[in-house]
């Protein structure tokens, strides 16, 4: 219980490999960019405290792997998420088209109680690159995707550059705000439901040492 009291917000960052998930996180949390981030394998998180509407929250941001073969592992990390960030690369059309399947994958594997109105946010990264390299008629395609494929839901959309630190702060502040709302919603229903699932897991060391019999 106590772990939840200080308003810990869990955020999952998803998207194709190489769209810049690790770079975005590093830019936001550590204020630095380098071309040295290696491909992410498995998942790990960074935490950053920030103040949202006079409330201090601790944002726990999970960086995940983009390679397809690691996608099935999400079940181990997604549970209890308060917001999900879907990333694409403005120079890579495939990463844009994959947004909706990342969303699906998240909903299938996570344990969210309100799949219909769970907060998602879309980040298009690498806007610093040359205009010529960007996806042709990006806005139209984007509109198409947010209107149709994502179930007609309009998620907040940010265009960022992790390299030049454009819009990264703003995007994550929004993430935090949305996560906070979700967490408050969840918190309320949790009290209602008396559901202890999301809270710290009880450890029974003395009576349960026999090992799993199955």
């Amino acid at each position, binding site marked *: 219980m106590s772990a939840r009291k200080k308003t810990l917000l869990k955020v999952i960052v998803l998207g194709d490999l190489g769209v810049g998930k690790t770079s975005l996180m590093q830019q936001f949390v550590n204020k630095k960019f380098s071309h040295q*981030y*290696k491909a992410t394998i498995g998942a*790990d998180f960074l935490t950053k405290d920030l103040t949202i509407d006079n409330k201090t929250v601790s944002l726990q941001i999970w960086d995940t792997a983009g*390679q397809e073969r690691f996608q099935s592992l999400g079940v181990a990390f997604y549970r209890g998420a308060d917001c999900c960030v879907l990333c694409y690369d403005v120079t890579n059309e495939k990463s844009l088209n994959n947004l909706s399947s990342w969303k699906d994958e998240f909903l299938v594997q996570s344990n969210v109680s309100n*799949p219909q109105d769970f907060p998602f946010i879309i980040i298009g990264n690498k806007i610093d690159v040359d205009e010529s390299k960007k996806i042709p008629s990006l806005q139209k395609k984007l509109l198409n995707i947010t209107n149709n*494929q994502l179930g007609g839901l309009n998620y907040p959309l940010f265009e960022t550059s992790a390299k030049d630190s454009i819009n990264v702060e703003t995007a994550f502040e929004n993430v935090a705000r949305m996560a906070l709302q979700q967490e408050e919603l969840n918190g309320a229903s949790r009290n209602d*439901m008396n559901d202890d699932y999301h809270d710290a897991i009880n450890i*029974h*060391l003395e009576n349960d040492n026999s090992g799993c019999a199955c």
Partner: protein
Amino acid sequence: MQSVSYFPTETHFSKDWEDLQLAHLHNAEIEPAHTKDEVILDAIDRKDALKLAELARQSDGLLNAHLRAKAWPILMDHCHSLTDNEGFLSTLEVNDSEPHKDEDQVLLDIKRLFTILSHFNSFSHEVNSSYTTILSQEDVEAMRKRLYCLIVKVLRKYPCLHYYQGFHDVASIALMVCNDLEDHDDQAFAIVENLALYHLRDFMNPHMGLSINHLKLVPLILEQADPALFQLVRQTSSSYTATYGAFYDYKFFPALLALLTMYSHDVLSFNHVMRVWDFIFSFGAISVSAYIYASFILHSRAKICDELGVKDLEELSSADADLVHKIMSPTFLFAGVSEADLNSVLDKTASLISQWPLVSLFDSSEMANLWFREFNTESVVVTSSKFESDESDSSSVPRIISPSDLPKIVDIQEEQQTKESLYESELFQRAIEQDSLATSVNSLDGNSPSALSLSLLTNSLSNLTAVSSSINSRLSYTSSVILKKLSIQSEELKNNKPTRKETALSVRTNIYKLSLTIGLIGFLLHFLLKHSDVSQGYSSKSFYSLVRKFGTIFSNESFWNNRLVVQASKSAGDLMSAIKDSEFSNWGRYLPEVGLGSVRKSVFALEKMTL
């Protein structure tokens, strides 16, 4: 490399030195006081793998890259000799063979692999190292190109192997270690090829489950070595929490990065990686990786307790799963590891191996026995991890894999893995049905379905779908088994002429199971769509037949035989009409929500009616 004499170079000493060497030649019993690198060189010359293994486990391992480049192939050959190595390299140019499907991915990953540079910098500070040149940007580019060729060569020679992110890290270490040799690229190829065939083969299978099996070794070892730490890991795992303790799958994800890359992915410094590889090769077994990981956890016990805010794990009453993931992950465990730390971790590893060798782990756990002796007999954990002791017995000559054998082995492994995951998902479903579902239904006895049980249900449901979603084959089979089981149970209940109370219970049981089924179907359909090409006639046909199949089951009144159920089947119908209404291309995206949404809707509807 210049061999540096241990003795001063005065002439009268020189004479003694020659005598000693002569004595050594005549009588091997008398060991002259050689420096360690001389001893290693000598063992390399004599191809004495046992001696090298012993030296590799000592506190400074095989000393430097130069010696390692020569010693590792001997250590590896000792355990698993390779066949027609030269054949491929001399007759088959890389350019002549079919490109491998993963080559683009390799290129992408290597572009991001700047670590080569940092590794080379650490090289130049190494004592006795001949790598003193500072690399220019061009040199780094050249290294990258060589690394790309190295990986592509392996992939093209064995097209049935799949590239995984992390394999490039492994290959980069081999490339750097061999850099000083004349035939460096060929030597690096030999090392990487051997690794791919005998140590990393499981990771290069299309089925991710084989990699995950390696992760299971870590909790298995902890279970023996430190029950309290094991409890911490188990009780914060997703399988355990989802089934309320009825089922633990041993999937220890924090170790994924370290095991897949053999500790080479920014996990440890380059010198430490080489030490770890010395140690692993000295056993000729990749499963040593898992022992090392467990040993790191044991070594960090105090740090772990600190982070959890307790003096000892016994004081701990609860723990946050995410926090436990963090403190079991490399970034936390390996932060600031010193030479001394690594030595004590490796010493501890050696004693873990001798105390609880794989055989004893498999014997002690029914599940481990199942994973490695029943289902995955071709896993490298089994085939290349016998832990040959110093008195290696020649009767267990390791099997040699030729390029033509490999596809068969890979196929068998994939098939075995599919069977295992099906079996596992059944265990999991049974755990959910029998445990959490049963308790939630039983706790309802006499009361209306409470919000608590609703949340229990949705939890189990989405965890069930989540876990099962990693299986992408024969899902419809599994679901029809579930449906069949449900129908049999409901028949039994009916035949027993239940009392009023029992009827109420049975109705509720059915409601819950029905809801569960709806959700399950939702995700099954979703999955079918996602994993087959929607634009193809085949999948739409199978999709329709599936819909029809479920449709008949739900509309079959005699099956459910209760007016309450009509309401529930209506929501099943909602699901179907939602499917029909939505555009074809959007089905796959819409379904999971429909599935979960309908469950909730149906349960609420039923709740209202029973009140």
